[in-house]
């Protein structure tokens, strides 16, 4: 009684996500073909050379920072937290989209994530590494950074576990470790695919990391449960990480920081900026590697929809902050917010509003969600906007607090800029190496989008 002219829902969905005539073999060949390329594309070398130059700037600047101390930065009294904290929050935030895509969308059975999750998880890993650099180097005496850890020592000294800064350290380190485990677990079947297709030395390396995966259902059974549990525990973890980051601010008494809206507002902003970065990277990668049939316009459209949602959430948070500042009747709180919009750093505030609130409104229209050059530009604007959000929170709040006698202006130095730019070198060097040697889309999971992967496909169940 099957009418071949009528397509099932699964088929229609699969045709949008994997257009053209694709089967298990072609998916393997297309995705595994990228790390197997004999000749590395010239675009890759150009980008890699650029990333390495930035990495050299990073190494030099951090070296000088360690040698000379944090005095080389533009921080002063009262702005003790400058670009280092802005960049830390910015990079951690970017990482959040990776976990959201791989964990939360997995729990919601959003199959379309299968084409972008590997990509996004890798972005998370390198973004969190870049983020961890900043708390590491901003302590000044880097050689005692291990004091963060609760290690028994001859001084009988322990970290203050009641401090949000230590919570933050635990949260971000746990986040990094769990993201790494999640990423690697997802890679095991794909490494087995690369092992089975490679020869010689490469086969040994891929084989070592594939751990002897045989694809038997007795293995898949435990594997799937482990993956599901990792998704389940990563979901509250990712929500906790940026909430804890926000508590670095929210537990203080500074007007503009001491608000309860911070945790959800930070999480929404983090997801917003992370999707911006996934969008930027996937538009470049699908172009360079001709993977437009696997990372499709449909995927970009869905990401733009999430950016619209989270963009509206941060927009709501911005307005609610103003409302509460007025409604609280607290003159210091009101001043802090008026100073954000109309004070000497008004341009930072309005750059943030433009990029984070105005720009995503275009995504109400399908035309813009599917216009790739437009998406590329907006995805970059989103991350500029999110950087300004942290600038607004850190610098504008600190530069004018309770007493006008303590006010000051903040000017970054060349070293602030060079370390920030340098982290892009760290990020892109890692990411490009990943693109070169590992499958950027999950081979096993991409196949699950095909209706043929369902054992009930083509059967009539009475």
């Amino acid at each position, binding site marked *: 009684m099957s009418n071949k002219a009528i397509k099932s829902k699964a088929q229609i969905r699969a045709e949008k996500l994997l257009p053209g005539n694709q089967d298990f073999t072609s998916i393997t060949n297309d995705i595994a073909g990228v790390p197997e390329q004999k000749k590395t594309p010239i675009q890759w070398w150009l980008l890699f050379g650029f990333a390495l130059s930035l990495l050299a700037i990073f190494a030099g600047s951090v070296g000088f920072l360690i040698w000379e101390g944090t005095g080389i930065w533009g921080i002063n009294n009262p702005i003790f937290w400058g670009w280092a904290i802005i960049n830390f929050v910015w990079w951690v935030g970017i990482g959040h989209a990776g976990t959201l895509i791989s964990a939360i969308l997995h729990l919601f059975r959003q199959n379309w994530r299968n084409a972008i999750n590997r990509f996004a998880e890798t972005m998370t890993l390198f973004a969190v590494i870049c983020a961890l650099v900043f708390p590491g180097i901003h302590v000044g005496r880097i050689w005692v950074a291990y004091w963060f850890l609760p290690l028994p020592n001859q001084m009988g000294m322990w970290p203050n576990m009641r401090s949000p800064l230590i919570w933050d350290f635990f949260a971000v380190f746990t986040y990094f470790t769990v993201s790494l485990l999640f990423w690697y677990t997802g890679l095991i079947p794909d490494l087995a695919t690369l092992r089975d297709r490679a020869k010689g030395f490469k086969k040994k390396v891929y084989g070592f990391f594939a751990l002897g995966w045989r694809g038997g259902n007795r*293995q898949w059974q435990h594997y799937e*449960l482990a993956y599901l549990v990792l998704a389940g525990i990563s979901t509250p973890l990712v929500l906790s990480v940026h909430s804890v980051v926000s508590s670095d601010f929210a537990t203080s008494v500074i007007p503009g920081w001491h608000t309860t809206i911070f945790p959800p507002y930070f999480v929404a902003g983090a997801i917003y900026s992370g999707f911006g970065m996934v969008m930027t990277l996937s538009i470049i990668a699908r172009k360079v590697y001709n993977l437009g049939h696997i990372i499709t316009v449909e995927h970009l459209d869905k990401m733009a929809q999430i950016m619209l949602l989270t963009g509206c959430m941060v927009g709501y948070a911005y307005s609610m902050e103003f409302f509460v500042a007025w409604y609280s009747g607290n003159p210091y709180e009101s001043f802090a917010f008026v100073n954000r919009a109309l004070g000497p750093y008004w341009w930072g505030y309005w750059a943030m509003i433009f990029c984070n609130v105005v720009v995503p409104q275009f995504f109400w229209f399908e035309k813009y969600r599917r216009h790739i050059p437009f998406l590329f530009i907006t995805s970059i604007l989103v991350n500029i906007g999110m950087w300004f959000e942290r600038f607004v929170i850190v610098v504008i709040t600190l530069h004018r607090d309770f007493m006008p006698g303590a006010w000051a202006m903040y000017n970054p130095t060349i070293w602030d800029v060079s370390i920030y730019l340098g982290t892009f070198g760290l990020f892109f060097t890692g990411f490009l190496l990943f693109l070169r040697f590992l499958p950027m889309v999950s081979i096993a*999971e991409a196949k699950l989008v095909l209706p043929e*992967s369902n054992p009930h*496909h083509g059967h009539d169940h009475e």
Partner: protein
Amino acid sequence: MSKYGVLARFDSPQSLVHAAEKVRDEGFVNFDCHSPFPIHGMDDAMGLKRSKLGYLIGAMGLTGALFGFGLQTWIHSIEYPMNISGKPFFAYPAYAIITFELMVLFSAFGAVFGMMYFNRIPRFHHPVFYSEKFSDVSSDAFYVSIEVDDPKYDENEVISFLENLGGTEIEVLKDEN
């Protein structure tokens, strides 16, 4: 040289599930179904019990939470009681975050290393790798393997049984190459 078992290839997830059901109903126990991706419903088709990994992860999570809470309590109440802006030494609400983070961290280790333990990996040599064609299983092939250890194993019968199920490229695997 001893034998490992028989390998038969099937052409789709549907036929693999179908074959698994038949192999299970025939009374085989030591067999496995290999596929490039996890197949929905295969656990039932093979008659596998639910994975016990969940209990291990739960135990690890509980250990992590207790460790996290205990560590903080011990540090601030016993080992190094320090008055910081008048906060109580046993400030248990403030311990929630690190307790939670360590619970997640330990559970994640439990999930990944527990999965490796239950799957007996890393294991770099296995008789199925001696088959030339078997390597397709990580791309587009579907295989059933029935092992010599199975109490019902009889080589000729197993081969004809798998042939009747629609298996192709049937191979008898040796334990060593």
